[in-house]
């Protein structure tokens, strides 16, 4: 396959081609805004969407003479996160200055943590679609302040700086370079996203920028010991973009190496319109950040009593909930993972199962299937579902007790979703009760057989596929209401003759 300057073909195709030779190595750095009321070092509000610079006080603006004071809630949130990923909590951590010049960084340095972060090594397990569980290492997590925002359009020869976001607390979560595919990366990212929302330390709103991801991507020949040179793709704010950016980047790097070139260690941005990554001009040169402990802040001390206090307040974590669901409801680890993507979804699912305890799998399929599709279509999440758990359980119970078939249930669901009505009302109104009377079904079968002598002959001659034809015709004649299981059984008998 010819390798061009620009990668062509679908990424999956390319990767399939290159799987023999190449291995992808991915590490992710997640920046999650902590859901505090005030900023990390100042008492400015953190609410999103305020008019430009209306939430930037003198400390945020880096005026001469101002000083930082640490927000207590950020410490608790960091510790909560550390406990949830099984990490060590540093009894003493230190804030350090990361020095560089950029207009959205008012002090000319970012207060972050460098040598002594508050959260040490931990891990996060991800469950892939095929059921494999992979443990992704988390190197560390630390507290730091966010920068402001730059606007480059609509101001003529200028860029405009809004410092509302400057000083918003962030937790930076650094993974080990343990991921080997975009799929794994997205699974990990989604898990972290789920976790921070479970812990109520971040609202996870990627559109508003509360949850951002930088991907460090490199490739190496399979079997190679050292990692290849990595490029950092910054500020990916959707799971889809993460996946696409990684695919593009991997293809780009392989292409470079195979053409005899060298991958540059650089910072890149993903352009969603063009579907490609490009070098960030403004950050072209490697920055020497000259980290040193911030002399305006003292070391942060966290003692055992504090940690124990935080531990007591931990909610049931996603993994715990998923394990419980898998055991109690016989779900696959993957399905249990999907159903526990958020606490709200998990709670909703549990509420449904409570009302149809004899068939949790049915509940799982419907919540992950029809319900999820409807939520997606309407662009809402489970908290805004048009149908509550009781309504959905009501519908599922009608499938379980044979009143309607699964297929008809889908129709009923659509009506319920649109009108908010309960299952029984819709079934009654539309007369959708399943026909389970064998005599009635036989009658319908007989009628179809009578008008289809050709197909009958072909079927009996060995064309098994025609079974579907008969099923379809009976369903048509009965308005889709024939009980499928009974239909199958009776039809088989009749066709056999």
């Amino acid at each position: 396959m010819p390798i061009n300057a620009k990668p062509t073909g679908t990424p999956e195709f390319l990767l399939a081609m290159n799987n023999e030779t190449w291995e992808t190595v991915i590490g992710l750095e997640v920046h999650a805004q902590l859901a505090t009321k005030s900023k990390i070092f100042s008492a400015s509000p953190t609410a999103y969407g305020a008019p430009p610079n209306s939430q930037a006080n003198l400390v945020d603006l880096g005026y001469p003479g101002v000083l930082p004071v640490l927000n207590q809630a950020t410490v608790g949130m960091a510790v909560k996160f550390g406990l949830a990923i099984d990490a060590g909590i540093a009894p003493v951590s230190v804030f350090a200055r990361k020095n560089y010049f950029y207009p959205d960084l008012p002090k000319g340095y970012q207060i972050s943590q460098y040598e002594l972060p508050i959260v040490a090594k931990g891990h996060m397990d991800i469950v892939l679609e095929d059921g494999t569980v992979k443990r992704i290492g988390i190197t560390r997590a630390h507290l730091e302040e966010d920068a402001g925002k730059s606007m480059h359009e609509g101001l003529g020869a200028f860029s405009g700086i809004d410092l509302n976001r400057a000083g918003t607390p962030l937790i930076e979560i650094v993974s080990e370079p343990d991921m080997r595919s975009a799929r794994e990366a997205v699974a990990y990212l989604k898990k972290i996203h789920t976790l921070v929302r479970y812990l109520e330390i971040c609202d996870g709103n990627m559109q508003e920028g509360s949850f951002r991801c930088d991907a460090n991507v490199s490739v190496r020949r399979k079997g190679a010991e050292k990692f290849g040179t990595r490029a950092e793709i910054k500020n990916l704010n959707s799971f889809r973009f993460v996946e696409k950016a990684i695919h593009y980047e991997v293809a780009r790097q392989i292409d470079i190496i195979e053409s005899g070139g060298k991958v540059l260690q650089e910072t890149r941005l993903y352009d969603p319109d063009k579907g490609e990554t490009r070098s960030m001009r403004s950050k072209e040169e490697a920055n020497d950040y000259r980290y040193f402990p911030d002399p305006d802040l003292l070391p942060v001390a966290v003692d055992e009593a504090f940690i124990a206090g935080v531990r007591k307040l931990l909610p049931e974590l996603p993994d715990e909930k998923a394990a419980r669901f898998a055991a109690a409801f016989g779900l696959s680890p993957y399905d249990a993972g999907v159903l526990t993507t958020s606490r709200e979804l998990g709670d909703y699912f549990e509420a449904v199962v409570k009302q149809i305890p004899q068939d949790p799998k049915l509940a799982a399929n419907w919540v992950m299937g029809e319900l999820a599709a409807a939520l997606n279509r309407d662009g809402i999440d489970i908290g805004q579902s048009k149908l509550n758990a009781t309504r959905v359980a009501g519908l599922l119970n009608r499938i379980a007790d044979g009143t309607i078939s699964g297929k008809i249930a889908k129709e009923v669901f659509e009506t319920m979703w649109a009108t908010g009505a309960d299952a029984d009302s819709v079934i009654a109104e539309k007369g959708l009760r399943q026909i389970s009377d064998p005599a009635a079904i036989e009658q319908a079968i007989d009628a179809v057989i009578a008008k289809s002598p050709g197909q009958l002959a072909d079927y009996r001659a060995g064309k098994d596929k025609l079974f579907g034809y008969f099923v379809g015709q009976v369903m048509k004649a009965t308005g889709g209401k024939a009980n499928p299981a009974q239909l199958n059984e009776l039809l088989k008998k009749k066709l056999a003759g």
Partner: protein
Amino acid sequence: MSLHTLSLAQLAAGLRAGEFSSVELTRTLLARIDAHQPQLNALISVTGTTAMQAAAVADGVLARGGGGPLTGIPMVHKDIFCTEGVRTTCASRMLDNFIAPYDATVVAKLKAEGMVMLGKANMDEFAMGSSNETSYFGPVHNPWNLQLVPGGSSGGSAAVVAARLAPLATATDTGGSIRQPAALCGITGFKPTYGRVSRYGMIAFASSLDQGGTLTASAEDAALVLRAMAGFDPRDSTSVDMPVPDYVAGLEQPLAGLKIGLLKEFFEKGLDPDNERCVRAALAVYEKLGAQLVEVSVPNLGLSVPAYYVVAPAECSSNLARFDGVRFGHRAKDPKDLMDLYKRSRGEGFGAEVKRRIMTGTYVLSAGYYDAFYIKAQKVRRLIANDFERAFAQVDVLMGPTTPTVAFELGSKTSDPITMYLNDIYTIGANLAGLPAMSIPCGFVQKLPVGLQIIGRHFAEARLLSAAHAYQRETDWHTRVPPGYE
């Protein structure tokens, strides 16, 4: 009775007794400032109108029987303290047009006491210097001899008090910037323990070394002001939450039995023999008063200067990064791009000494040099602090010279590193270790003042002030006024 030579206590008494008003006092001092500013250049801004307004308000308060010991008394702030609505320049072109939008905590506290601000004192640019020759607004002249430097970086503050233009000037000390000018100008300069006085609103030079303090004629005056200035500030994370003792009540603490440590390293080569004579005479007075002199040593003191020349520039290079022409301060004209904006705004805004220190700081923090320089310097810092701690196990206070010589000529400064070094070595140790330290006048050499330095343990301000006060009850060096300023 000349109003301008009265002590703070005398001024307070006079105001309360109605012998004179704050308005009268303020007018008198503003006139003196006006008269002497051309020769001294001690002030960058004079806030005459607001001073008179504040004085009138103070008179009202006093008339109603309200106010405290500092109400209605005029003073000057070093132009490093942010003063709301008033130009705050740090003696730099970078902040030439900067009107501070808030009051520093120190400013707010003294304002709350009813003090009347006459203006902002000249200083070395961004507090970097020890002769007040790096100011964008021109050098300050020593009232004792106009050809000589007043010391720095708080040269303007020292000249104001020495020339009796105001009884109090606030100042800051990072490597000796209160004590050294106090010595060269014949007044009392006090640097508190690190964390004792809030740094909020005090434009940062080297955050782990800076402390705000006072320049006054006497220890008694210093005690009065420090009692109001010191204290915990929740807006400063390095501010210490400890109650402030009544330094004034503590002044009369008896001296007898005080163990005074004489640092061996302070009396080694380089100290001018005449200066040494004055200092030793002062020590003899202490002995006469019942103190005991003990020789002690801070063996690593010699390393305090190289350690300081790493730590201070490192911190300042970072602290001054916020001056970028974007939100306040000097902006270069017609920048062609962002890089040009930064480089020219900063290149034009900062003077040579400031740039030198930023460059040094940037270098010692840079990749490959951080461990060898910055980390090493901070380790040496601990060695020095430990040395001081060991010395204080044997004695109550340390005493010695504040400077190796008396004031030197303007412009003669000194690319000679030895002299530079010697100028710093007496004072820097106290900053590195965060110890309280002061300088009081103890004599003259060729009609120029000599300072005696007193260093104490952490939070031993009361001890230092009472020891200084005891000496000032016995002697009158601190009452001497430069010829022409009586």
